[in-house]
């Protein structure tokens, strides 16, 4: 009887145990145990349902959360459990969603919000799976959704919608492919013909060129005997030049042929090759009804592509150096300057040259103007639109960087545009300042002070219109001043092992408030330099040294086995070195500390070190429990409030203030007592 009772209570204790945890999930072993026990008998299941409903009433969100997870597990599995639970669904929802105003979810609030979202999610899931059999589920879902307007995650519908959209998209692409395939089928032969014609023409052209070349006598071939004694490099150069010489060169005779060839090449590469590639990819992707015709077409296309490639190669080998010339042509065309559009100038320059062509014609007359002129305009405009550093100013900056003579660079700018773009790419980005007004120009002139266009006469008395500000003063005023910005390096994480099993990811400069000084640790979070003494407070100082020593020591130990004799000596040596290293490390640490003390960061961090270390150890000592979750976290504000609002402090302040008031009063009325 007693054992039976014990058996009967088993599920209750299991559930108690499973919910008495601070983890974000139910212990899977316990969950499995609960499930197996509950599955064995209906009475256990009833007891479980009862216990779970009781636990849902606990005044702790974490307990409710874990209980809800167990409820979900059982709900999805057992029909009896469902019927039992559905009876009190409104209560369950009130306890898990907290929709009743007089029954809000208990602390801690963070877990309460997860509890709520989880409960809503579960309700949606339950409704989707079993809503048809349980009116209560439908009612609860409907009430939360339509009356209280809770936001449901709507998982199923979202998934269905995404799936539908994807299928729709696929269908459309298939349709498009099919259409293209049909088109291709109809005009495949004509395309083929066209390509073949072009290829033939190219071949003929090449033949013509070659035959002409054959007639020309080789000039330099005879020299080959003499070159043998020369060094290998020279010979290589020579061979290359010979090869180059073999190539057909364009001259007046074959200019027409070359022109035609170029034309055809362009057609071949830009049109035919691209279209053939496209067709191949289309054929690969399309799902045609007749696979045979598709395969044959594919084969043909691949053949065509191969022949095209070979022809292209022939063309390039034939020495007309077509691709290069084409590029040069293009680049010549793009010599222009876009005027007036300031913000986008930068972008324009970085984009592909082809994009600029649109504005080219409109800017044609600009070309005639000298670049100096433009720069002048630019700088004027820049002073109007302040914030942005324009391209021209960048160029100017570059001027100063690479050479002091700006005019020279301007010349290069005029002659070679590529240099300009190169410079633009390199130009530094600066914050705007008055120094940019005469960037690069060494102004040695004095400036008239009172020639700003204001009528200052008769206002401040006589005005000296000839007053000047000396040049050195101007230079001083225009000095570029920047604020030094400390470069923030990568701050290493603390990596101390936490209770959760992960490593502490806090990034502090020197001392982690929870785990003390930051020291190098291995992947498990254990400190690497165990043997280092207490003075090793500065981690990034001699850590690698210590590491080195440790390695050395390990090596030594290995060697000990081999060579017994050298053991003593080596040990002594290492010991000595270690000592030496320690001394050096200490020295370095002292120096480093001294240096750090002057920087802003160390000033901010150094002071509260001791205190935080103490607190960290306290925090580590108390283990996290359900009760501790309810405790309010002590924030900085609280600590400050504790400091400032205790009676002593307030008394002191009041005393101070009354004293001050007394003093002022006495000062104001010295003759009164």
């Amino acid at each position, binding site marked *: 009887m007693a054992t039976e009772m014990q058996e009967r209570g088993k599920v209750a204790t299991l559930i108690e145990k499973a919910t008495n945890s601070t983890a974000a999930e139910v212990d899977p072993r316990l969950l*499995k145990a609960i*499930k197996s026990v509950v*599955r064995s008998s209906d009475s256990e299941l009833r007891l479980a349902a009862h216990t779970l409903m009781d636990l849902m009433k606990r005044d702790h969100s974490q307990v409710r959360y874990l209980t809800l997870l167990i409820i979900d597990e059982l709900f*999805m*599995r*057992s*029909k*009896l459990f*469902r019927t039992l639970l559905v*009876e*009190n669904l*409104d209560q369950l929802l009130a306890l898990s969603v907290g929709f009743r105003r007089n029954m809000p979810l208990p602390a801690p609030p963070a877990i309460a919000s997860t509890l709520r979202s989880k409960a809503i999610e579960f309700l949606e899931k339950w409704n989707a*799976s*079993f809503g*048809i*059999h*349980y*009116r*209560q589920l*439908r*009612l*609860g879902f*409907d*009430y939360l959704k339509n*009356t209280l307007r809770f936001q449901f995650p709507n998982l199923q519908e979202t998934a269905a919608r995404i799936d539908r959209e994807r299928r729709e998209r696929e269908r459309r692409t298939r349709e498009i492919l099919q259409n293209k395939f049909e088109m291709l089928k109809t005009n495949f032969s004509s395309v083929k013909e066209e390509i073949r014609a072009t290829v033939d023409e190219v071949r003929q052209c090449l033949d013509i060129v070659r035959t002409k070349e054959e007639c020309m006598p080789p000039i330099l071939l005879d020299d080959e005997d003499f070159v043998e004694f020369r060094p290998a490099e020279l010979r290589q150069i020579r061979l290359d030049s010979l090869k180059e010489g073999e190539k057909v060169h364009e001259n007046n005779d074959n200019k027409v042929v070359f022109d035609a060839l170029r034309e055809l090449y362009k057609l071949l590469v830009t049109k035919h090759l691209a279209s053939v590639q496209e067709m191949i990819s289309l054929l690969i992707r399309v799902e045609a009804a007749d696979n045979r015709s598709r395969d044959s077409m594919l084969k043909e296309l691949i053949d065509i592509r191969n022949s095209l490639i070979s022809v292209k190669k022939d063309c390039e080998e034939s020495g007309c150096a077509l691709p290069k010339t084409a590029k040069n042509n293009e680049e010549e065309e793009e010599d222009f300057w876009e005027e007036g559009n300031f913000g986008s100038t930068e972008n324009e320059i970085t984009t592909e040259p082809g994009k600029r062509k649109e504005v080219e014609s409109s800017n044609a007359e600009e070309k005639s103007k000298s670049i100096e002129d433009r720069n002048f305009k630019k700088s004027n405009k820049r002073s109007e639109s302040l914030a942005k550093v324009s391209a021209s100013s960048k160029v100017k900056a570059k001027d100063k960087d690479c050479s002091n003579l700006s005019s020279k660079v301007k010349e290069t700018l005029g002659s070679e545009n590529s240099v300009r773009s190169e410079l633009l790419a390199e130009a530094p980005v600066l914050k705007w300042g008055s120094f940019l007004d005469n960037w690069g120009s060494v102004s040695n002139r004095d400036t008239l002070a009172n020639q700003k266009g204001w009528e200052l006469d008769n206002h401040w008395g006589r005005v000296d219109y000839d007053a000047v500000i000396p040049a050195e003063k101007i230079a001083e005023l225009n000095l570029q001043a920047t604020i030094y910005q400390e470069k923030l390096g990568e701050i290493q994480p603390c990596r101390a092992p936490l209770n959760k099993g992960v490593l502490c990811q806090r990034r502090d400069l020197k001392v982690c408030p929870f785990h003390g000084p930051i020291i190098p640790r291995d992947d498990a979070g254990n400190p690497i330099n165990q043997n280092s003494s207490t003075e090793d407070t500065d981690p990034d100082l001699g850590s690698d040294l210590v590491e080195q020593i440790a390695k050395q020591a390990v090596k030594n130990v290995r060697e000990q086995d081999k060579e017994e004799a050298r053991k003593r000596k080596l040990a002594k040596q290492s010991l000595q070195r270690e000592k030496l290293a320690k001394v050096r490390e200490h020295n370095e640490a002292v120096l480093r500390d001294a240096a750090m003390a002057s920087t802003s960061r160390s000033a901010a961090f150094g002071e509260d070190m001791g205190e935080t270390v103490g607190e960290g150890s306290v925090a580590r000592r108390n283990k996290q429990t359900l009760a501790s979750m309810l405790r309010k976290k002590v924030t900085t504000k609280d600590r400050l409030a504790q400091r400032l609002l205790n009676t002593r402090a307030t008394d002191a302040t009041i005393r101070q203030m009354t004293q001050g008031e007394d003093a002022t009063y006495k000062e104001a009325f010295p003759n009164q007592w």
Partner: protein
Amino acid sequence: MWKEIGDREMGKIRPNSFSSQIKSNRISNLQLSNNKDIVSPHRGSVNSLQVDLTEGRYLLSGASDASAAVYDVQRATDYEGNGLIAKHKCLFSVDKQHEKGHKYAISSTIWYPVDTGLFVTGSYDHYVKVWDTNTTQVVMSFKMPGKVYRTAMSPLATSHMLIAAGTEDVQVRLCDIASGAFAHTLSGHRDGVMTVEWSTSSEWVLITGGCDGAIRFWDIRRAGCFLVLDQSQSQLGRRPPVLARSAANKVNVSKSLSAGQNSLGKQRAPQKKVSNGHGMKQSTIGRMPTNGSVRQRLHPGMLSIQDRATAHYGAVTGLKVTDDGMYLLSAGSDSRIKLWDLESGYNTLVNFEVVRLQTSKAIQLAISQDSAQVFVPCMTVVKAFDVWSGKMSLTFRGHYESVNCCWFSSQDQELYTGGNDRQILVWSPCQLITDDTDAGRTKDEDNWSD
């Protein structure tokens, strides 16, 4: 069950008791119906429900969003989940969009008792309106001096067509549909009238419950009220059933109803606990007009102490007369349900285990046809009590907010409840035979994967 059928065949059980047995059996098995959904078009709390008295087929509901709707509870409009769930959408609804609709919450909707061609709505916009069901047009409207809390028409009436309306005002008005005017103005209550109910035994008797805690009885043929229930006057227990007693006393029950009650009135005397001398104890509803030398003297200005008697502390929020017209159940904002013996006008001291009742609104009680069970909305749940013992027999848990009204359809043994969560729920006897023939839908069964 089969045994009972066998007994019925053998003639051991009389048809009446057989059917009532089956019915009470079904009533004890009421639960939230999974396969009968009433799709509520209301956007506010449902305040009133009634199934028509002639066919028992059309459910009328009134809600706080000034809408009223009619549903066919016998035939579903469409089905869901492979025919598992029958949806009953409203046949029509009238709301604020209707050109002559109510402006504010409808507090009360009732069918014209004789047929379903008319229904009456009372609203917080001070109007009582009479609607033609077929054209959904207002055929008559009565302007009241305040918010209308409850309207009632006598189910027995053959000689009048009066709508009794309880309003914010202290006076109860009777609106005559035949003439379109107020026939009576009954004054006596000292505060608004929450609930009105016609007697089920006499077409002339009206019962009203006010916010002053008084339950007053009016005979509409005479001026003034003739009875005020007093909670301090009580009798222990209930009278023995009519049949047994009449048999024992050799009283011929085949006489007219009033005569029967007459005789009952005479029998009543020895059972009374205390007769404290004043004429009140002599008053019974049915015979009041016929016999009343004492009444005559007392009636016009009843003793003021009597006139000030209260039935509940706080407001009377709900009234329901049993089908035989001999008992009255009243609910008050003091969270009490009281059972009154109408013949004596005494409180029977039945203790109903009610925890809490809604106090701010009138609630609508329902009673099963053989007066065995009373259904009371208690906050978010509806509870079924045994009328004579006050024991709670069933709890209907399903609404998410307070329940305002319930209606028991004796024809189908179904309970309809409406609440602040805008739902109208159907509670029906559990189906004994479930058809699992259609395999297409997802089965509701255990699914242990591990």
